[in-house]
């Protein structure tokens, strides 16, 4: 098991003060911090071998192409996928849009159901709604129970109906932390219909727990680089190569073509067919360094560390008078994004006072408005933890909530 005190030294930002107090960074579900090793890897690219990839015959171009393709391989190994099915995008949102505009638009039509859930991030809702305007399929939403779990009876009924051709579900909620049974759902979906595909939102799960795309049984997995210690500006779509190969291009331009004439074009092989234009070279190299860093720690240990933090944090929050934690309470059933409500206080007020105490939490709807509405709320306060957080920071969080309550005093 790694030593958190040692790890923290790898993250320059964790040394800073905010409003005269040491930074307590509890917003990793929004974006994680970056270890020096990632910055160094990107720095090496920009200072010693920066060149465009897949074109040019000079030494720098060869080196950058090798580093970029090596990064693709690192991503593939990290999630146990085939590198031919790894597409670099600018973020997880673009990965969803790729599936929506390429697969869903060409494969779904009247009579088909796209089944997703009320728990999803807007990235896994809005692209489907946009494509629906052109393809006229039906969208259904699996409801979320009061405990923050998916209503699996609803799911089973939808499966029995046999009309679901696309299932899009998050592996881990960014608001209530719920870990969904996505592997079981994928298996059930494929039993219900041969031509159905499943998209898994891995933006929260891939950074925080081991991921095995092959064992998962899904057809697509979307993830984000900046939530897993990588730079901003890079995400990945992981796809079954044969499925990817069958899909029409999403964005057009250079790099994705085989030949271009004035009467039309033919397209490059996968995954290049889906990487139009100069790709995210420096960012992909940074992401590979982040994966190196995570693998050196071990994803099982990352998960174990976070389960430990969850098991301390939830009881500590619930011990505060007037504080309610949303979502599952069992640390093994959830991730480390912990949303809570403080009676009588608006999350923006909680977030502002916390900020003055040096604590970075997220206040708002977390880009998951349907879910937050189902909690009977317009916004929540969310503390989210990662491998560099410590039990002492939970103590600070609890102290800051008490400070906030005192500040606003006897309300209601």
């Amino acid at each position, binding site marked *: 098991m790694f030593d958190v005190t040692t790890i923290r030294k790898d993250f320059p930002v964790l040394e800073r003060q905010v409003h005269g107090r040491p930074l307590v960074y509890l917003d990793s579900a929004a974006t994680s911090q970056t270890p020096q090793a990632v910055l160094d890897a990107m720095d090496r690219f920009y200072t010693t071998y920066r060149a465009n990839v897949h074109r040019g015959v000079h030494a720098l171009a060869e080196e950058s192409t090798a580093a970029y393709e090596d990064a693709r391989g690192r991503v593939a190994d990290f999630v146990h996928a085939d590198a031919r099915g790894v597409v670099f995008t600018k973020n997880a949102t673009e990965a969803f849009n790729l599936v929506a505009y390429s697969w869903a638009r060409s494969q779904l039509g009247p009579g088909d159901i796209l089944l997703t859930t009320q728990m999803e991030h807007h990235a896994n809702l809005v692209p489907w709604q946009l494509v629906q305007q052109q393809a006229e399929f039906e969208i259904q939403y699996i409801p979320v129970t009061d405990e923050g779990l998916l209503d699996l009876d609803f799911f089973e009924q939808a499966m029995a109906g046999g009309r679901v051709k696309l299932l899009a579900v998050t592996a881990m909620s960014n608001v209530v932390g719920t870990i969904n049974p996505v592997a079981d759902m994928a298996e059930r979906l494929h039993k219900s219909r041969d031509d159905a595909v499943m998209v898994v939102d891995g933006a929260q799960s891939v950074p925080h727990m081991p991921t095995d795309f092959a064992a998962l049984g899904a057809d697509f997995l979307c993830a984000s680089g900046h939530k897993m210690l990588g730079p901003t500006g890079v995400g990945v779509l992981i796809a079954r190569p044969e499925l990817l190969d069958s899909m029409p291009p999403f964005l057009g331009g250079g790099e994705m073509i085989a030949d271009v004439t004035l009467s039309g074009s033919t397209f490059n092989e996968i995954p290049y067919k889906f990487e139009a234009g100069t790709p995210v070279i420096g960012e992909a190299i940074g992401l590979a360094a982040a994966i190196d860093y995570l693998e050196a720690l071990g994803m099982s240990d990352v998960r174990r560390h976070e389960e430990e933090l969850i098991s301390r944090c939830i009881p500590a929050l619930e011990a505060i008078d007037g504080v309610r934690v949303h979502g599952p309470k069992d640390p093994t059933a959830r991730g480390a994004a912990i949303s809570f409500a403080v009676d009588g206080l608006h999350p*923006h007020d909680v977030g502002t006072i916390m900020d003055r105490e040096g604590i970075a939490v997220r206040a708002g709807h977390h880009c998951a408005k349907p879910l937050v509405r189902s909690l009977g709320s*317009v*916004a929540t306060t969310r503390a989210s933890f990662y491998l560099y957080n410590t039990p002492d920071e939970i103590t600070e969080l609890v102290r800051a909530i008490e400070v906030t309550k005192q500040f606003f*005093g006897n309300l209601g």
Partner: protein
Amino acid sequence: MTEDLYHDIILDHYRSPRNRAADLERADVHVHHNNPLCGDELDLRLRVATADGTAAIDAVVYDGEGCSISMASASAMTEAVVGRDLADADDLAEHFRAMMHGEPAKREDDLLDGIAFQGVAKFPVRVKCALLGWMALRDAILTFQQGEASHRVTHEEPTLAGEANHE
């Protein structure tokens, strides 16, 4: 600096809201404003009295859900504008808006407790909260002047100036 944001007067309006009500008898206009970015919702109802050809605010109530700044600002606004003729209330709202963008406060005395929100200007992300009630007021006045009885406005993401755009 937190005291600049959460001035005692602001906290007082939050804890003891003035003119907060879900309805207003014989209301002439009702506007609903929401800010999807933070989820704030505000209903504002006006009753207008016309005498000697001048229309004035006879009564104003607000209701809604939002942070302390947005709710307290709406509360302070109602006290500052009741009894004023519509053009004058609109002018006062413009002064408040300018103050929230860091301009020196004018009509300080007329703003009553509204002056306590001056410090919010130092917190750009919260400026839109303080403006919500005042923008609803201006919209209610405009709606009334156009002969309408109700209007809904969604405030989109704040611009660089911290202002909200109308639908």
